[in-house]
């Protein structure tokens, strides 16, 4: 639905703009944390990993600020219709992005544990999976910035590729562990990392669903999940 004008009370537009800015900043930081954590893992860079763990606090701080501003907007501006949906979306998206930050932090925390482990082959698949996930996160935040419901649908559709990555990693790591029990510690950590990435992908679809709802006022139809039964059970 086209918006013909800004609000008569221009300060309302400024408040909403500020809220959107915070969501964008928070999303950008989470995006950087995800790709940074993967780089730290691949390069075995403990300093970079420690930095990502530390930076997560900033993401949490922005989430609190978004909550504070959303509460203030609801109380003082009595938003309606798409304004109300937008504020609700900002609140929910900030919660989702905070979780993404936690997953990135969790990946970074595993870097020191994996430092001494011998490189095992699936480690080479993880960066590709991480790129697919980062692309999803970026696309979901772009859809938010552009209030674009079509772009949001594309994000949800791309989750299938991430799920496929996870399924193949799951099988590969399981095979490694069965063939060589010495790799179990490292492979389990890598499995958790893969799972974290897969969850980040799911959260990107949550963002896309909120973008779709904020823009259209309707819930995006339930989509089929890509995980196979074995991996899903775990």
């Amino acid at each position: 639905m086209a918006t013909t004008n800004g609000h008569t009370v221009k300060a309302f537009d400024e408040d909403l703009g500020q809220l959107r800015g915070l969501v964008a900043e928070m999303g950008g930081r989470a995006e950087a944390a995800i790709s940074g954590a993967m780089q730290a893992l691949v390069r075995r860079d403990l300093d970079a990993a420690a930095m990502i763990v530390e930076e997560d606090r900033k993401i949490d701080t922005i989430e609190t600020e978004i909550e504070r501003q959303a509460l203030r907007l609801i109380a003082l501006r009595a938003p309606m219709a798409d304004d109300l949906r937008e504020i609700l979306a900002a609140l929910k998206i900030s919660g989702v992005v905070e979780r993404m930050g936690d997953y990135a932090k969790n990946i970074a925390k595993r870097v020191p544990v994996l430092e001494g482990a011998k490189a095992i082959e699936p480690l080479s698949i993880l960066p590709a999976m991480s790129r697919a996930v980062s692309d999803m996160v970026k696309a979901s935040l772009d859809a938010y910035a552009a209030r674009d419901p079509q772009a949001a649908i594309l994000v949800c559709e791309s989750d299938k590729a991430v799920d496929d990555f996870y399924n193949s990693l799951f099988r590969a790591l399981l095979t490694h562990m069965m063939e060589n029990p010495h790799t179990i510690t490292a492979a389990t950590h890598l499995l958790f990392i893969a799972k974290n990435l897969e969850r980040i992908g799911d959260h990107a679809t949550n963002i896309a669903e909120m973008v779709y709802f904020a823009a259209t006022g309707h819930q995006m139809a339930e989509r089929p999940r890509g995980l196979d039964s074995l991996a899903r059970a775990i």
Partner: protein
Amino acid sequence: MTTDTLNDLAAHQQVAPVETLKMTARGVNVFYGAKQAINNVSIDVTQENVTAFIGPSGCGKSTFLRTLNRMNDTVSSARVEGEITLDGENIYAASMDVVQLRARVGMVFQKPNPFPKSIYENVAYGPRIHGLASAKNDMDRIVEQSLRRAGLWDEVKDRLTDSGTALSGGQQQRLCIARAIAVDPEVILMDEPCSALDPIATAKIEELIHELRGRYAIVIVTHNMQQAARVSQRTAFFHLGTLVEYGDTSDIFTNPRETRTKDYITGRYG
């Protein structure tokens, strides 16, 4: 939150599952002289729901409200076309008794306008001229019941002989609602009933509207969109004399279909 509270909330906000058509308007036009104030409005008012009319000043919402009990008859230049029915009966038919109609479709105005008489007489006046009570006992009962339903009884029961104009603004407005109720109407029209009241008096009127819902079909015109959102189950948005959108209040305020409605309720109008 308990299940009961949730159910109460749901009952307060949701459109009644069973709906009885109380009034209908079909293709209504209203002219003041050569100027057209209402253009081809069709709408249904149900017994069970509170219907709110919203829209900017001059959009015709009050004019349209006044067609529902032929209040526009008192304006000499006003002319109404189209059909408006009450229980299926055309209220603009020549056979319609306008005095009876206004007893069946009562009205509460923006500014409280009690008669300069006692509180008791303010409520008793209508039933007396309509011959609804023969004995003093009957009249006492009607006055008490009306004041109770209007949520005013406990505040005035010891001073029924005081002048109605001595009450506070909010009490005066509830007295006017009691006066409208006293003749046992079927529909109550409210034309910005809270715009002259403070927030506490407003909350009391809104609670009263909630209490009266179902017993009477209620139509309320309000400038205050929050009020429409709070008290009504159906909302109609008027703009430039046309009915732009009419639907469930929760839909109108969360996801309106029309851009004009959205721009108005989100404060982007004009």
